[in-house]
């Protein structure tokens, strides 16, 4: 916290005070971001009998990816649903 405050003060001294004590703190946020070392996973997988669409691993980009991952996942669901029997071979 001290480190964050020191840095924002350094960059925006007219806006943010140097000492945490001089702030009106609303709360402290700690979030655990679900990252994936090899990147986002958005893909289909047949697991046993089950049709699965994976959509995870956005790390700190939950809102950044939200509706975009949603569109990709929706398209993958529709591939399962509307796939013609012939295409399955």
């Amino acid at each position, binding site marked *: 916290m001290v480190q964050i405050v020191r840095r924002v003060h350094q960059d925006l001294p007219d*806006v943010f005070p140097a000492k945490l004590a001089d702030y009106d703190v609303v709360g402290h*946020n700690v979030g655990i*971001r*679900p990252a994936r070392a090899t990147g986002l996973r958005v893909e289909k997988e047949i697991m046993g009998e089950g049709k699965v669409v994976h959509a995870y691993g956005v790390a700190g980009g939950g*809102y950044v*990816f939200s509706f975009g991952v949603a569109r990709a996942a929706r398209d993958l669901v529709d591939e399962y649903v509307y796939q013609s029997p012939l295409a399955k071979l």
Partner: protein
Amino acid sequence: MAIASLLSRNHDVTIVAKNLPGDELSREWASPWAGAVFLGLDGSNVREQKMQLDSFAVLWRLAVSNPESSIKRIEMLDFHDDKTIDEIWYKGKMPEFRVMRDDELPAGVKLGMSYKTVVLTPKVFLPWLRKRLEESGVTFKRMSLDSLAEVKSQGQDIVVNASGWGSKFLGDIKDQHVQLVRGQTVHVRSNYDKIYMRHGKDYTYAISRLDGTCILGGIKQYDQTDPQLDLGLQQDVSIPFVVTGLFGTNRGADR
């Protein structure tokens, strides 16, 4: 929920999760704790870039069509200590994008960009989206799962695994690539009305929520040796096993 919002137009959707929007805040999922702002992510491949821009387009529209969602348009000042404009994949893709002049840059900054983006307040946005989904027929079901296969008992045709770091623990997935990355910010009262982002040796930001408060950050994600990481918050770090955000979809026509 974003996925459900698109699927619910053509499918019957049930969201299954241990933690649901509107609950008392839990550390077991990241969404309630986010900044939360749109910022093109460094190192994204072309597919990821497209997903981000698709997402931005939706959020940008919602800011005007549904202000009660808490989404607001805001000015972004995006600074980099060690990057050139050629390394920025979203250059020119954000509204009112411009490269800042040298005399506008803080000391030590090599590249500055100014553009419009969106900011939202998770504790308003998440329950708002849930309510909207429920009104369009999406069901929310509280459930903890040990494996993805367990949702089969719910009778779904297709399961969308949006379990975040649950994918590390679900018995039939156990994706060892999934990492839990801790982030820490402080939420303060302030009239600052922009977003200030600085990437470099440190990752420093001030995110105005445009409601008289700001989120200040950030803690370097993988730097576990920094004693400042803990300061009175250590008790929040240990996270029990959890599954979040799983949902299945029933195809209406098949029922």
